[in-house]
């Protein structure tokens, strides 16, 4: 577990106690990371900002449901942000091919150390991705990071929908098997 995770877990339980100062601190420490997720998936500044507001409303309301022991605090927060951003994107009627605005506004500096995923975890998943066929590993990464649906992935990788489904399903199962082995 990365250093600082305990502090974030502590802040979330304080938020569950309706401690507004803890909420402000939690926001200060985690909003840039979660904002980065919303921007990357939604590719639109205003939509990402609206989504981030919704995310912290959900964090305030759902703080007491933070499942202790099961997920790390940061994983819990990231899941709320990612799934909300994906929901907002899916709700859009047309899938546009906008310019990637996320890159323009990204901070130059690296993540604060306490929010970075432990390097060991990253190495483990990279090693497991290396065991997959390259296009399948790419599709898995694109699905998680960009929030693309099966349909969008099939279009972007120019393969039939069923092929993409097979790639990702097999990829996920191999990934799990590999992560358990390592």
């Amino acid at each position, binding site marked *: 577990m990365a250093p600082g995770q305990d502090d974030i877990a502590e802040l979330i339980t304080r938020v569950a106690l309706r401690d507004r100062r803890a909420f402000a601190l939690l926001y200060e420490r985690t*909003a840039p990371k979660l904002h*980065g997720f919303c921007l990357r998936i939604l590719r639109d500044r205003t939509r990402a900002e609206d989504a981030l507001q919704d995310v912290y409303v959900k964090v305030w309301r759902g703080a007491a449901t933070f499942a202790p022991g099961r997920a790390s605090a*940061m994983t819990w927060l990231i899941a709320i942000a990612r799934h909300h951003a994906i929901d907002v994107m899916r709700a859009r009627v047309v899938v546009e091919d906008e310019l990637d605005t996320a890159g323009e*506004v990204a901070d130059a500096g690296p993540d604060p150390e306490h929010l970075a*995923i432990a390097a060991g975890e990253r190495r483990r998943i990279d090693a497991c991705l290396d065991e997959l066929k390259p296009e399948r590993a790419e599709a898995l990464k694109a699905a998680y990071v960009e929030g693309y649906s099966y349909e969008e992935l099939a279009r972007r990788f120019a393969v039939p929908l069923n092929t993409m489904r097979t790639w990702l399903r097999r990829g996920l199962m191999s990934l799990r098997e590999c992560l358990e082995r390592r």
Partner: protein
Amino acid sequence: MNEESAKRGDDRDLLAAEYVLGVLDQAARQEVRRRIAADPDFAGIVADWEARLAAFGDAYQSVSPPGHLKAAIDARLFGQKAPAAGRFWQTIGFWRPLAIVTSLLFVLSTAIGLWNGVFLPPPAGNLIVSLQAEGSPVSFVALYQPGTDAVRLSPVSGEAEAGKDFELWLIEGDNPAVSLGVLPKTGSARIALPPRLARRLVAGTTLAISLEPAGGSPTGVATGPIVAIGQARPI
């Protein structure tokens, strides 16, 4: 495990993985969320996948949100004007509705007191709260029978260090935590609930235990770390 149930288990695992990856369409995502809410086992499988794939999150860069965003969130949650002018509890806008609500509550509670037993439906099912927290050895189970005037607490593990006490808190909605009192050093406890608090202990209400100086928090708000927390749910 026979072949068929193994197959079902795999399907469940795959669905959880696809949900976490984010590739399902919106109808399927909503269906998965219904399952997460209804099936704790399935929710656990989803949480495991969130943890497994979290390392992909390194690809995202942090981007500071604009300064006004936090004030907008506060305005949505706490009805505070953005940007904040003074502390919210110093404003008449805070006290006036509070005064009205308090008087209404007084009238209501008197009315309920008068009519209690005549019109109130029989109490709903009992509530259980499993209290625990990340990295804390302390866990308790609380039981409450709606309509009664006390909540019963049983320690599962952990005890307060010497010179400290556990204090129990009730959190409902967006309201600040209210102390329900200090827990005895050992064994089960029966914590009396005044009627105004008993009515607030419903499914979804949060109970929490904090570690406080001997005798309980000197300030009326939790000062120590939260050692266990959980939401009430019907048994």
